[in-house]
């Protein structure tokens, strides 16, 4: 059930006659402005705190308690800084590129399944739609770099586009293997099938542990997603040492803030998609949250789905937080790859491996009629 229907359901209770379209825009505002941007901003603070921990220093703690409002202060500072567009920059494309990049990274939040009842919009082509919007980001990066008429940003932009573009293939193949296993593209179905296997149920536990090929595919997906958001071992386009922060050399003030925000939104987006299609979204091992039943109900409205939904969102966001922490952890442990190592890794290692993994996953689902290791183990032990 999409967020918009949930809100309009609420509206029927209150009786106000607001049309459905307003609710879809409202759901967009809620997910983007109240979830993606604040959490993206908060990640900048978190990244500096985590980095400080790794290097045994304190990190930002001046603004607000424990420095929690640091990202807010950064945002205001960027908002007020001068946005100087260089003389022979190509004004039209210069202003058009950030909205392409942001549309690509924030638009895909529509299909993220936060809980069994709350999802931005349950498209039948959910995962495919998220990949389609991902390809807009590479276009925006290329145009933004090209229009700022700066040799460094042009080289950084070309490298960034080549890197994002070529890592979309292992990403696509990993998502393909998930679809081969679960037979549906809509995110809600993909997650619903990862419930804890029960005798009658359809769940076959998390896709990561479905079969050995899927386990490897998760790591391929994670590596490709790291490269897609230009994060640490692959942050060549913004390599500070070589390219003077690559494609966003010429961006100042809020324009740079928008690009940085869209980079963090990409990290969160891929963490959400990875935890939804590989780590079983809102499912918890050993227990099915949807069967949780609390007696209390207000008037005739039973409260247990609400409580279940809150718990599910908590579980889902915990998994996203773990993945984002690993991304930040990598930043301070792995050195940066050279261009040819980066491309060789993609074309000579990731793509062949994901080819064979896809074939392996298909053969596994064919041989065991889609049952996972856990289900097979359960049958051997006679549990069901």
């Amino acid at each position: 059930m999409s967020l918009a229907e949930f809100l309009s359901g609420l509206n029927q209770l209150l009786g106000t006659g607001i049309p459905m379209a307003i609710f879809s825009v409202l759901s967009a505002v809620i997910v983007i402005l109240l979830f993606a941007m604040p959490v993206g901003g908060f990640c900048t603070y978190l990244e500096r705190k985590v980095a400080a921990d790794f290097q045994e220093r304190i990190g930002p703690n001046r603004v607000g308690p424990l420095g929690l409002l640091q990202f807010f202060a950064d945002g205001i500072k960027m908002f007020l800084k001068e946005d100087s567009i260089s003389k022979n920059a190509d004004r039209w494309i210069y202003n058009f590129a950030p909205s392409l990049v942001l549309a690509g990274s924030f638009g895909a939040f529509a299909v993220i399944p936060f809980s069994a009842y709350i999802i931005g919009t349950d498209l039948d082509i959910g995962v495919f739609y998220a990949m389609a919007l991902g390809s807009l980001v590479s276009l925006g990066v290329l145009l933004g770099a090209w229009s700022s008429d700066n040799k460094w940003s042009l080289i950084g932009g070309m490298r960034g586009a080549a890197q994002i573009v070529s890592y979309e293939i292992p990403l696509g193949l990993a998502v393909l293997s998930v679809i081969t296993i679960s037979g549906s593209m809509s995110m809600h179905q993909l997650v619903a099938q990862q419930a804890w296997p029960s005798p009658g149920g359809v769940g076959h536990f998390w896709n990561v542990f479905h079969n050995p090929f899927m386990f490897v595919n998760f790591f391929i997906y994670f590596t490709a997603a790291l490269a897609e958001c230009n994060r640490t071992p692959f942050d060549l386009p913004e390599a500070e040492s070589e390219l003077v922060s690559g494609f966003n050399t010429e961006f100042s003030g809020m324009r740079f803030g928008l690009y940085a925000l869209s980079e963090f939104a990409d990290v969160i987006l891929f963490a959400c998609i990875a935890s939804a299609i590989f780590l079983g979204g809102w499912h918890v091992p050993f227990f099915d949250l949807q069967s949780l039943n609390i007696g209390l109900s207000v008037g005739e409205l039973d409260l247990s789905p609400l409580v279940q939904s809150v718990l599910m969102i908590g579980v889902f966001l915990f998994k996203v937080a773990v993945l984002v922490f690993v991304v930040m952890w990598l930043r301070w442990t792995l050195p940066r790859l050279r261009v040819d190592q980066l491309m060789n890794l993609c074309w000579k290692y990731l793509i062949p491996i994901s080819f064979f993994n896809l074939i392996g996953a298909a053969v596994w689902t064919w041989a065991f009629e889609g049952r996972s290791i856990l289900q097979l183990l359960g049958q051997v032990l006679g549990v069901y």
Partner: protein
Amino acid sequence: MLQEFGNALSFVVLAAILPPVILFIGKFFRPSFPHEGKLTTYECGELPEGSAYVMFNNRFYLVAIVFLVFDVEIALLFPVLLLFREAIDIGGSVAFQVFALAFAFLGVLFVGLVYEWKTGDIDWVRDAADRRQHLESQEKAAL
């Protein structure tokens, strides 16, 4: 189903109009002192000479070409592999048909990838001089 598209569209439209709105609102608060030095492109301090539209050797384009073909392959495989699970439930022969079709498709294109690999086209060698040195090192390794 159109309501679902409407929700997705409102997400994309909101995300697309965010930057112009923020940058426009900021215009009133932002200082703006266009100074000659500030407006030239950033070249670590020196005066920029020559435009940035310098040409590149063509390893970028080889990547773009090979990516295009493999991206098409993934887009075509999505609908076929979507049915794989359903075909298994229907019966063995249908499942075999879908499996053979999809993985013949995959195999043929894997041949393309192997060809690229063998002729060294996806090697990310910087330019002609390096390529010759790259090839000589391969020959030494082969001897």
